């Protein structure tokens, strides 16, 4: 018996084993010291980069990196018939693809629940916050309009996909260049000559909403982790996403999961989101 006691008292984990066995407890040890395992402070965001015009086969494209998360958004324009209710309005269709390439958490086949929810969230921001006046996409009223397929491919997944994907979609939308179309008896033709200012146009965005996400770790203390990575997403219980446009008007507040939050906590999230989106906007310009 004594030998057992002796071995158990000297039994130690390596940090990596501890993280694997008790991810939440491992994390709590860091948070109690005010830091996170990747060296960030609780309110720290990961380095973010934005690149425009990365794919020449697309009408507009962008690549966004937020720490270990890399997404590429490509917008392709096609011609479609408008709906009967909105005869002079085009379409913008955002879809996010979380393929098994970007993380082992995703399986091959139809989109996972997460991919669907993120696609829907971007779709709602585009529609409800009136980001693009869809009449710009009209070719011939009631006959033909542009349909912009905004597809986001996740190359590398490391948490906070909504912020990265929304930033990528907004950058790609500002990057879109459409050739001026001619409509003739049901046929839409564009010129094949090189792109110039005269034969093409870009979209005018009413506003560019960008989001900031915080993970809620440990209720009821409600420790907020800005820009959670994938390990942090797995141990946290809820999240708050604040979406803001360039005039600091809110375009969305979403709080889900975890315990209840006070209004003051939501307000502090909004304040911090304001600073963060200002930083992001300087990358967009």
């Amino acid at each position, binding site marked *: 018996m004594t030998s057992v006691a002796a071995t158990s008292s000297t039994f130690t984990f390596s940090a990596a084993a501890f993280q694997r066995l008790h991810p939440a407890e491992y994390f709590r040890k860091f948070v109690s010291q005010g830091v996170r395992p990747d060296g960030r402070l609780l309110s720290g965001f990961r380095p973010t980069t934005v690149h425009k015009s990365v794919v020449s086969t697309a009408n507009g494209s962008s690549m966004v990196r937020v720490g270990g998360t*890399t997404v590429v958004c490509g917008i392709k324009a096609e011609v479609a018939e408008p709906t009967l209710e909105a005869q002079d309005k085009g379409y913008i269709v955002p879809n996010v693809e979380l393929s098994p390439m970007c993380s082992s958490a995703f399986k091959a086949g139809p989109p996972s629940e997460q991919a669907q929810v993120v696609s829907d969230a971007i779709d709602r921001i585009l529609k409800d916050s009136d980001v693009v006046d869809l009449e710009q996409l009209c070719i011939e009223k009631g006959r033909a309009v542009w349909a912009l397929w905004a597809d986001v491919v996740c190359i590398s997944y490391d948490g906070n996909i909504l912020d990265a994907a929304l930033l990528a979609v907004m950058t790609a939308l500002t990057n879109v260049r459409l050739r001026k179309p001619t409509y003739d008896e049901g046929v839409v033709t564009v010129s094949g000559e090189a792109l110039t200012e005269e034969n093409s146009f870009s979209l005018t965005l009413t506003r560019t909403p960008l989001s900031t996400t915080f993970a809620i770790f440990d209720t009821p203390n409600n420790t907020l982790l800005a820009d959670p990575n994938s390990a942090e997403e797995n141990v946290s219980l809820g999240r708050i996403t604040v979406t803001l446009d360039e005039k600091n008007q809110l375009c969305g507040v979403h709080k889900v999961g975890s315990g209840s939050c006070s209004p003051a906590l939501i307000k502090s999230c909004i304040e911090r989101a304001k600073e963060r989106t200002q930083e992001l906007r300087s990358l967009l310009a």
Partner: protein
Amino acid sequence: MDRKRVAGPENAVAPLVEYPKDQLRWAPQQEHRHSSKRQPEDIRPIYLKTGLINQANGSAYIELERTKIACGVYGPRQKKASQLSSFSGKGTLNCEFKFATFSCQKRRHHIRDAQERELSQVLSQALAPAVRLELFPKSVVDVYVTVLENDGLAACLAAAITCASVALAHAGIEMLDLVAACSGSYMTVPRNALGQPQTDATTTAAGASRDEIWMDADLEEEKHEDGSIVLAYMPSLNQVTHVLQNGRAEGAVISQSVESCIEACNKIYAVMQHSLLESITNGKTQ
């Protein structure tokens, strides 16, 4: 109708493109390759980097001018129950090849089509001979390849094989050798080309043309080719793992093209080694 994606209009088509009549379109001419000053035997400069997907066991990204491909490798990991039909003493190499919807001239669909299925097959046939599958029985290594931009299909496939092979090495999967791949296109080039393009078959057949092999052809060049070859090759073993030939060419031209591809693969091999060495030195400094 796809219910698991945000729905768009059902019958969307690409607009017709009309080229002005007076616009000169590119056509193959001697010593005049499309949009670059390459010689027929030159390949495009390669940018190859490992470790961009931090959740994957191994990953690589390759760029040949406009061709852009990312690859992630997962495994060896347990086979799924559905894959585990019977015991196998050898591991499986599962390759999935996907074009991003915006990667080609014409928009592609989210769901894997026949061509992507075929290319997945070719990819796994080209890589499997190099991987020591006997070392991990009952397991699977998944190789996922996403094409972000396609500039020439044969060149794209070759780049995907090269990229996947580096990603496998980055994942620490034991291999006999790296697999480098290169493509070549059989071109009929008018001999004394002036400003005017000559695409008329009668003039080219009248001895005023010459067969050339253009390595690593881009999309515009590919439109004018008579056929192409994609060759996957293990440089230090001097063994070929896969040859994909299509189109019409004389036997001698094909032999010649195999030689040229092997030569190009040796050049690519140096780039692959360099990027892997870089990943090790970077790993040490971190």
